[in-house]
């Protein structure tokens, strides 16, 4: 049975662990103590924090709520769910995880219920559709996608509607292939102080301290690869782009820039432009790297990703330069001869 272990943090002479279904090393507890703590007002929406645990093949998904019923101003509840990286890659378990966070009852009379692990196979009553971004979230989704995949630096997106920001952030996370998802750290915050952050993505309602925060993207300048990813995330289904990313993404390094590269390649594939696809592959997958990808697009009889006839495929590669192509593996001579291409 796949389970999510849970920890509950709250105020007791300070923000601390109050209940949990398993023991954790002190340094991991310190990390989670900080991850579940945040400055919030009594009417703040729930905040989300998600982070891979160091030195463990595990991931922590945390939700923080204000606790105005506690005796100290600024006290919060923080519910942590710990899952294995493998469970994060399982569609059913991933969906279940998103539905598990639960704020304690006001009198905290249910603390004991946090001492047992939760079954990831049990229905939670929450579906991904309920958490999916709305059409009106397109703007924030575009900004988050551009910031997250535009560079490998820590991305910050300022958006006053944190609920929309959270939906967009969860959509971006759920769109990632399992290995990328298991290393992606993100959070929502009411206020973000512009300073170096260890999180891949921070979505904040406000920012203080000036500093470098990516400006909002202008709609007319939205890059095609960003628009393609956003369409995919808004569709909330296994689109051809999602299939493409999940097929070839896991072969490379689990970094965000790899996703952008694949998405850019996909826009060229979707446009049915073999020359631009070939040039982009040569530039971004030089020498013999990306062999499976190149074969899937230009190999004999490979028509899963685009409806390109064999003659165009072969002619495109015959004119290819450099050593980016495994001509023997692609049987280029035989195929050219069969088509009478010199």
């Amino acid at each position, binding site marked *: 049975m796949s389970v999510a272990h849970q920890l509950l943090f709250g105020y007791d002479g*300070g923000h601390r662990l109050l209940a949990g279904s398993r023991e954790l090393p002190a340094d991991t*507890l310190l990390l989670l103590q900080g991850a579940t703590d945040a400055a919030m007002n009594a009417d703040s929406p729930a905040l989300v924090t998600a982070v891979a645990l160091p030195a463990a093949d595990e991931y922590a998904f945390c939700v923080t709520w204000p606790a105005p019923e506690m005796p100290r101003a600024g006290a919060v509840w923080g519910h942590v769910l710990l899952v294995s990286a493998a469970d994060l890659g399982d569609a059913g378990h991933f969906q279940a995880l998103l539905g598990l966070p639960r704020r304690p009852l006001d009198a905290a009379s249910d603390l004991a219920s946090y001492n047992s692990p939760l079954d990831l196979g049990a229905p939670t009553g929450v579906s991904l559709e309920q958490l999916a971004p709305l059409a009106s979230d397109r703007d924030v989704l575009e900004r988050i996608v551009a910031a997250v995949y535009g560079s490998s630096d820590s991305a910050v997106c300022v958006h006053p509607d944190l609920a929309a920001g959270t939906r967009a952030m969860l959509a971006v996370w759920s769109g990632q292939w399992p290995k990328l998802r298991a290393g992606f750290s993100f959070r929502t915050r009411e206020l973000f102080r512009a300073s170096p952050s260890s999180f891949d993505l921070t979505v904040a309602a406000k920012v203080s301290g000036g500093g470098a925060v990516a400006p909002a993207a202008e709609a007319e300048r939205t890059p095609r690869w960003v628009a393609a990813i956003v369409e995919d995330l808004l569709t909330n289904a296994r689109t051809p782009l999602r299939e493409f990313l999940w097929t070839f993404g896991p072969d490379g390094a689990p970094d965000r820039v790899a996703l952008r590269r694949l998405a850019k390649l996909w826009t060229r594939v979707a446009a049915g432009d073999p020359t631009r696809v070939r040039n982009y592959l040569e530039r971004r997958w030089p020498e013999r790297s990306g062999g499976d990808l190149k074969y899937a697009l230009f190999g004999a009889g490979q028509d899963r990703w685009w409806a390109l006839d064999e003659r165009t495929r072969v002619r495109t590669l015959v004119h290819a330069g450099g050593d980016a192509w495994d001509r023997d593996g692609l049987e280029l001579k035989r195929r050219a001869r069969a088509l009478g291409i010199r």
Partner: protein
Amino acid sequence: MNGYAQPCLALIGMPQSGKSTYLGALWALVQSPIEEAVREASFIGDRSYIQSLAEQVARGEELHRTGVDADEEMAVELEFTGLGRAAVRIPDTSGESLRVLVESQLWHPRLRGACANATAVMLFVHPAHIRVPQPSSLLTVVEPSANSAANGTAVPFDVHDHACTAAELIDVFENVTELCRLRWPIRVAVIVSAWDRLDETLTPYEWLRARLPGFVSTVESGAQMARLEVFGVSAQGGSLDAHESPLAKGEICDRVFAKDRSGMPVSLVAPMRWAVFGQ
């Protein structure tokens, strides 16, 4: 002495010991034309955080606790009357991070950074949250389980629930001074907050000696490591829970106060001035 100092002060203390309230009151005083001990010397830097603290203190509101991972700080250039300018940097550390240091012997990176770079430490102690050593027989009595109490089963010692304040502060002192070894002796100002709640017959130093004698002895016997000073401060000017709000006492300058080790009234700025200049 007139010069230019660039001190980094570590404001540390357990949760609810009054660190942020002091910062807020101090900043309100810095901006007040009535306060003569200190003024703002330049307008460079981000003031949004301390300004927010100062406004809450001025309104007599309970300040929100500082988050474990909060990275707020006060970084301002101040002119101290008769002593000179100082570019003061004070990271606002959470009480929880100090508790983790004591309970798990683990440095939170931000607390470690604040202490490692500190030229002086301001250690906050709240009189309402002092815990005295409890004999093991008492630990048995406070056992929550009725069966265990009846059987006389001893409660296992738990640092969070049972460690006395003096032991915790000695541990903090040893950890911090070890981290600052290259700058010995460092200045350690103990700030007894909510001084308005205490018996007027004792001076701040006498109170500290009476309530935390082991801690005072440890610090004073380590003169090569640290210089100790003690202050009593009331950064709100009274209890926010009291029937009569501190706001009734007037503006912030009229209600906040501080006393030096001998009980003499001093400006609320005095603990910081001593931490920066040693006088």
